[in-house]
């Protein structure tokens, strides 16, 4: 966690400096509607889909294949526009970080797990933008989050399968039960991405973003010495609308 905080600070401060220098410090562009400067706040909503990669070293368990799975993201956003080209933005987002586990083993081809994980994420980002009617934005920051719930479905080897060789009893579909000793429900990391903003009315912007949530917190607690960490990397494509207050 301390690394995540340090990383965010190291990212945001140079950005502010670079951006300020490059724009001459007067926020002279990006203000298609000059009166927005009077009310520098906007709020918005967004939704989209994502693809999450569950990063874990499987060592000698080499036929366990974790593959990315799609999920949904949605949330609300608030931004404070410091200048015409620079703003601070914070989200309250529900982000699914799903994955699939397959077995690359011919005798286990029916075995799989589809894991759905629902996270509450609170990213805070520095945003710089260029352009007028259409603005290109880039943003970076950090996020903290909480693993709200999970669900597992799929097929698994069972004792019954070895008694009968019948796959009927290999299915499962259940809410995930957290293990207090293992599961680290606190989440944090960096978030970054880019997108576009389009002003469609005097106080309304449409947005389209591509965003990466790069988890820096192991989703497992450090409950054993000799363990491989697990992280999530989530790429979202999201669309939103913002209203200038």
């Amino acid at each position, binding site marked *: 966690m301390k690394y995540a905080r340090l990383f965010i600070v190291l990212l945001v401060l140079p950005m502010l400096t670079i951006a300020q220098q490059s724009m001459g410090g007067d926020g002279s562009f990006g203000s298609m509607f000059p009166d927005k400067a009077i009310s520098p706040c906007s709020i918005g909503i967004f939704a989209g889909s994502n693809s999450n990669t569950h990063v874990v070293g499987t060592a000698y368990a080499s036929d366990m294949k974790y593959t990315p799975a799609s999920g949904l993201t949605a949330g609300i956003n608030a931004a404070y526009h410091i200048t015409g080209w620079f703003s601070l933005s914070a989200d309250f987002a529900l982000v699914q970080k799903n994955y699939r586990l397959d077995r690359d083993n011919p005798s286990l081809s029916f075995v799989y797990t589809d894991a759905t994980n629902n996270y509450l994420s609170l990213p805070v980002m520095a945003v710089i933008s260029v352009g007028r009617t259409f603005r290109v934005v880039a943003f970076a920051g950090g996020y903290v989050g909480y693993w709200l719930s999970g669900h597992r479905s799929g097929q698994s080897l069972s004792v*019954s399968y070895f008694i009968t060789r019948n796959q009927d009893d290999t299915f499962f579909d*259940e809410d995930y039960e957290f293990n207090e000793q293992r599961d680290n429900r606190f989440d944090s990391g960096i978030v970054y991405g880019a997108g576009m903003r389009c002003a469609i009315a005097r106080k309304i912007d449409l947005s389209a973003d591509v965003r990466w949530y790069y988890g820096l917190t192991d989703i497992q607690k450090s409950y054993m010495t000799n363990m491989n960490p697990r992280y999530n990397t989530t790429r979202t494509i999201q669309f939103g609308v913002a209203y200038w207050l």
Partner: protein
Amino acid sequence: MFREMKSAYRKLLSICLSLYLLAFVSCRKESLEMINPDRHYCNTYVSQFETVWSGIDHSYLFWERDTIDWDDVHERLLPVFKEFDAKGGASDAELSEAYRSMVHGLVDHHMSVQIRNLKTGNPVYANPAWDEVPYRDYYHYDFSNQQIALLSTYSGVTEYCEGDGGFQCYGALFPGNNGKKIAYLRFRSFDVTSYSQAVHSGYMPASTMAPFYAFYGNSGSYGITGGWAKRDDVEALIIDVRGNGGGALSDLKPLVGSLSKTRIDFGYSRHKEGLGRLDYSAWTPFVVDCPPDHIQDDKKIIVLADVNSASCSEITASLIKSLPNGIFIGERTYGATGPLIRGGFDLLYSGVFGDYNELGYYVYTSNFDVVDKSYISLEGEGVTPDIECIFDANALQNGHDNQLERALLYVRTGK
């Protein structure tokens, strides 16, 4: 204006690229190189210890239930094995004591560790169940042979038979109520399916499985196609798995599933799924199918088991106990209820690993955690009988198998 825009876009691009690169060199912990405990050659006491320790660390099934601090075990014992290497070897007693200390208290009653002493070349063993089972107040050695010898001597016994091809199995009919019979079957291991195949392939005579033909009407692999179990004049069936150390899971369907009118929905099972101690699969139903040829009436079904009944025998006791017309008479069983499968490590990266002959170490341990409908595990505990009847050595010396007689009494009196 255009120059300003161009400069800004360039800066923007630089920032994006920097972020992207930084993300991939940032603060995630690296994955560890791990020893594959199933295929690791060891030439020192320390490497043997590290391999076995890490194998159990990653492959052992019951970490969620065990209270042993396994990291502390490593810290405590590593200096001991370093000392063995430093002084040029250890005695068998020293090595055995070190490994016994290592696995002491683990709940898995299947577990057995076999290590080759690099100095003497001798095998040493450690088995956590040995530190628990013999200390139960009702523990006794296995007296199966003496009990079996009494079978044909009981008054009224008819149609006594036994396998004659190396598979130890015994059958008999005891007198019941109102001229009815009580069918009795005892076998020493769950190898019925493999022996049955040998019989059907002509490698062994059918007489090898004579008690099964008498009881089930076939070699035991096809449910109840006839035999005592199907006869109307047989009022109860006794399956005796005392002293039976277990065997193949595939025997459960024909032998036990056929004693039920419907599939037996016992509980759930799960296995390790990943190398973390607490990486488990989901729970999936543990059911035993009822073969097409199964019991048709409501005969009483009694399973006899004792402290030396392990593994499949205990599962059999649990399954029969769960039947509406089933009852378990005898003693709390051994406590090795987590099944194993052949080649389990290659499928599940858990369970049995190593190869004593090739690698000098071998660890035998469970693949599946089995629980009942209430998610209660009996691993390390054993199955508790409905009617407890502790083995009586004095009675046996006087020609009485008190546990068998208790089962017969139950059938004859209903209590």
